[in-house]
């Protein structure tokens, strides 16, 4: 009791002292500002984000290695872009007098990548509005049920969406974007990944209807079967209304005027075969469901997502629909290199599914049984092997499609933009050919989206959408240097390298760190001590405002991200995520009720450089 009282008194004094100091500081600062302003009325420097204006719309890339289309190479050639169009390609292409010349001797030029389907440029709503509960959840209004096929994506575009710039950094210059939502979120558009206004970005509107097997929340249609039933119902209703509408227009005699219905009318272009439905599926079961409903109703369709298409090859072949494969991959399981599999004498399975590639030497036994708890290790190893196989199968999905002769394009979906190129490289590692990868990024999506006349290759007359790289884009060392969108140059900053360590090395957090915590009450200093090694860390944290030492719990190192939590008394249990870069650390403490508080620090002792943890 006494202790608590003392503490609260201390706190009170401490905080009142702080507030007095703060007031003094404020008065002082205000006075200082006044003095400064009086003496130097206009010295305040405005840091504007204003960019240097382009002085010419003509750009010449000279002496570059050009990949005009997948499988073709032109060494030492020039590409000339004027007013957003490629006007000349070739070794002898003359450089116009008004060209901004980029010597590209060591660079490779590809056609700008095209994203088959994503929500790029449509920011995630910050907070879902409180969902209205319909009077009759079994028959809710379309809008609440996620049925908005009439919604145009164009008014939703935001040029400031961060994903636009980060997609561009991976070489994407155009994207087919659709609204976010549930069953029928709306109508898509082709956008260019550059420009300051939504209007500048839009290349073509009303491209396709987007659909997914995603039910409404706590109302009809909530389940997959309901979504399919609802889709069928909508489709049939629309057909009926379409017919009635046509008949009435031809001759209204004896007919009642068909009523306008935005949902049905939005389906008309689909019924007429003029607008495809881009149907998204993730799992193979959903894919089968979508394929049957498509076969039944016969609407023009493009299949997207398809992360498990390796299990539906024959169905996909007979359906003969355009495919857009997602660039999202499952998280790579952590390789346990240390110990050899517990039971290495086991024979490899002979009845593995045919689609699985040759890496099946792994020690997964589908019939593995453990007799008692003493044998748990072998079960764990067996499950890990299975997980690795499943991961490799997903990565090898693209290669399987290629070897089966199915043409496909890539869509970025909800994949993190920074993973896009890495994921393509992983797919190539698992057997996808580079030409097929490039086609899936350029010519095939152009074909699926009806853009072959303007995008997809480096040819005269095409749009000035280019990716310029140092090294092959599919090489791990390959770097995007420039991206051109509609003839506008974007210089891409090389990614920051962690100093003095190779990319695979895991940073070592062991040592003492001096932290600075930006709390709402000002900067607080702290000392973080971490000891131990790989997966067996321990540590303490001392924050200067309290004399106590907090023991850190669940410390984990993932790549170069250090996570831990600690009990901070009245503040509750704080979780922390800090990113290491050699001898500096940055991140945040997530304080309950307050939110993330940013933390930065430097190493005061410990390994001088991050070292590889074996």
């Amino acid at each position, binding site marked *: 009791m006494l202790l608590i009282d003392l503490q609260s008194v201390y706190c009170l004094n401490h905080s009142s002292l702080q507030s007095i100091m703060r007031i003094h500081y404020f008065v002082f600062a205000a006075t200082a500002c006044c003095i400064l*302003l009086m003496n130097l009325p206009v010295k305040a420097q405005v*840091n504007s984000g*204003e960019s240097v204006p382009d002085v010419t719309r003509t750009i010449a890339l000279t002496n570059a290695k050009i990949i005009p289309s997948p499988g073709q190479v032109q060494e030492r050639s020039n590409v000339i872009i004027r007013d957003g169009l490629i006007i000349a390609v070739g070794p002898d292409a003359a450089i116009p007098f008004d060209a901004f010349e980029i010597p590209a001797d060591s660079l490779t030029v590809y056609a700008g990548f095209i994203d088959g389907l994503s929500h790029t440029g449509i920011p995630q709503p910050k907070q879902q509005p409180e969902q209205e509960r319909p009077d009759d959840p079994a028959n809710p209004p379309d809008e609440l049920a996620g049925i908005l096929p009439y919604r145009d994506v164009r008014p939703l575009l935001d040029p400031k969406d961060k994903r636009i710039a980060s997609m561009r950094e991976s070489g994407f210059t155009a994207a087919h974007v659709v609204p976010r939502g549930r069953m029928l979120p709306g109508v898509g558009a082709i956008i260019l990944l550059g420009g300051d206004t939504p209007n500048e970005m839009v290349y073509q509107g009303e491209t396709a209807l987007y659909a997914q097997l995603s039910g409404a929340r706590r109302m009809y249609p909530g389940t997959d079967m309901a979504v399919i039933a609802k889709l069928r119902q909508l489709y049939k209703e629309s057909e009926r209304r379409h017919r009635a509408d046509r008949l009435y227009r031809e001759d209204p005699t004896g007919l009642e005027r068909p009523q306008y219905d935005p949902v049905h009318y939005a389906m008309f272009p689909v019924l007429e075969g003029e607008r495809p439905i881009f149907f998204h599926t993730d799992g193979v079961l959903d894919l089968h469901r979508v394929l049957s409903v498509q076969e039944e109703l016969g609407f023009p369709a493009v299949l997207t997502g398809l992360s498990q298409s390796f299990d539906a090859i024959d169905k996909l072949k007979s359906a003969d629909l355009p495919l857009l494969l997602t660039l999202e991959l499952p998280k790579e399981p952590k390789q346990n290199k240390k110990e050899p599999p517990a039971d290495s004498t086991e024979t490899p399975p002979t009845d593995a599914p045919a689609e699985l590639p040759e890496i099946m030497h792994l020690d997964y036994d589908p019939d593995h049984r453990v007799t008692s708890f003493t044998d748990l290790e072998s079960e764990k190893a067996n499950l890990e092997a299975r997980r690795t196989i499943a991961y490799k199968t997903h990565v090898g999905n693209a290669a399987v499609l290629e070897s089966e002769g199915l043409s496909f394009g890539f869509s970025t979906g909800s994949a993190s933009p920074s993973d896009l190129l890495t994921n393509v490289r992983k797919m190539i590692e698992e057997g996808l050919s580079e030409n097929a990868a490039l086609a899936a990024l350029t010519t095939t999506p152009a074909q699926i989206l009806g853009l072959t006349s303007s995008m997809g290759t480096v040819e005269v007359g095409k749009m000035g959408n280019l990716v310029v790289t140092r090294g092959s884009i599919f090489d791990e060392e390959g770097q995007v240097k420039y991206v051109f969108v509609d003839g506008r140059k974007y210089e891409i900053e090389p990614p920051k390298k962690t100093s003095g360590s190779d990319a695979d090395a895991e940073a070592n957090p062991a040592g003492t760190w001096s932290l600075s915590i930006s709390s709402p009450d000002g900067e607080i200093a702290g000392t973080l001590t971490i000891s131990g090694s790989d997966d067996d860390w321990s540590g303490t944290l001392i924050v200067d405002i309290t004399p106590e030492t907090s023991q850190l719990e669940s410390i984990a190192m993932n790549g170069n991200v250090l996570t831990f939590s600690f009990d901070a008394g009245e503040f509750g249990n704080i979780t922390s995520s800090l990113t290491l870069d050699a001898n500096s650390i940055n991140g945040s403490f997530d304080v309950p009720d307050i939110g993330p508080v940013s933390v930065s620090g430097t190493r005061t002792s410990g390994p001088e450089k991050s070292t590889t943890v074996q």
Partner: protein
Amino acid sequence: MMSLLYSLLTAAVLLIPPSSWKTDTVTALTNARIITITQGTIENGTILIQDGTIIQIGTGVDIPEDARVIDLEGLSIYPGMIDSGTQMGLVEVGSLPETRDASELGDLSPQMKALTAVNPNGVAIPVTRVSGVTTVLTVPSGGMLPGQAALINLHGYTPQQMFAGFEGVVLRFPATGRRGRFDSRSEEDIKKAADEAMKKLNDTWNSAELHQRIDSTYQARPEDGRRPEYVPSMEALRDVIRGDQTLIIHVNTSKDILAAIEWVQTRGIERVLFSGLAEGWRVADKIAEAGIPCLVGPVLSVPTRQSDRFDKAYKNAGLMHAAGVKIAIRSDDTANARNLPYHAGFAAAYGLPLEEALRAVTINPAEFFGVDDRLGSLEVGKEATFFVADGDPFETATTIHHVFIAGYEMPMESRHTQLYEEFLQRTPGLHMHNQD
């Protein structure tokens, strides 16, 4: 209190009519000590002016019969002083945003001309000229390339009438150091900001050079190509790149000065003036070697570093001159640009030779701005822009008796004198109450 006073000042529109003397009649200023600057000092000399120009100067000058004669027994004639850095006409009252026209948002606006914004009725204009400062450079601020500074005479009803024949593109060179004691950014942030600013400057210049090249090619053979894109900010830099216009680089710390010298040399910019140079004395030899003329000031200031002696700002101009730098002195002020002579006076008291201090506010800036054929000294053929003092103008006790700008005699009236008169001649006045 001050701001209240200033508000009152702006409320009253101050229109002082120029002298009604016709300029085609000859005016003779006789019996004066004439400090010509370029041709020595003439005792008991006479200056004849007509049509705004000095037509004769010296002793034993024949005075036409119909001439207006002003006897300057015991007085001295100096060429009008030139302040190489003010915001005259752009800023009226510093604390009223409505009256501040010097600074625009954005980093790249070299196409903006300060001259177009000059307010010929600015209250500070008569205040400044009655102290002998007849010509000032008025400089826009804000952003990296805030616009074009203009040299103006402190007399005229329109900016064009005031224009004194020089405009220069202003570049505020990226500052690498802390901006002041209240700049609490980390070293890393400061460096990052400086690198970004430097990159932006170089990107801008690359673009401007390309634009200039394209334009030159097009101008040489317009039938071969199409007209270059219209990019006003880049066009404004074109003349600088071609060496047809002066670039005025604002730079203060020694490190930045060295960086600016290197930048100017790498870019091969022909016509450059440095302005500010608070730490010029630290690298004076390098500036002298580069041969870049400097607009130094304010002199009445404090040292830039705590370790410096108290008088470093006063000595700066003298040290730079001693190292061989060509200097002009600026007040970097607007309401108190009238103090220019005291800036020069302090520089003279702290090591700059008196004669050189005079040159630094007359012929030197005139040469730097390319107007030395008309301004900066008292010579036949030059504009009749000068003032008459009863002593050394750098001394505060000295009174200025006449000011002529391009032959027009200025009324020796300003807001200061008006207020003085008003308070002196108040009726009923305070003494009435005292008598009660």
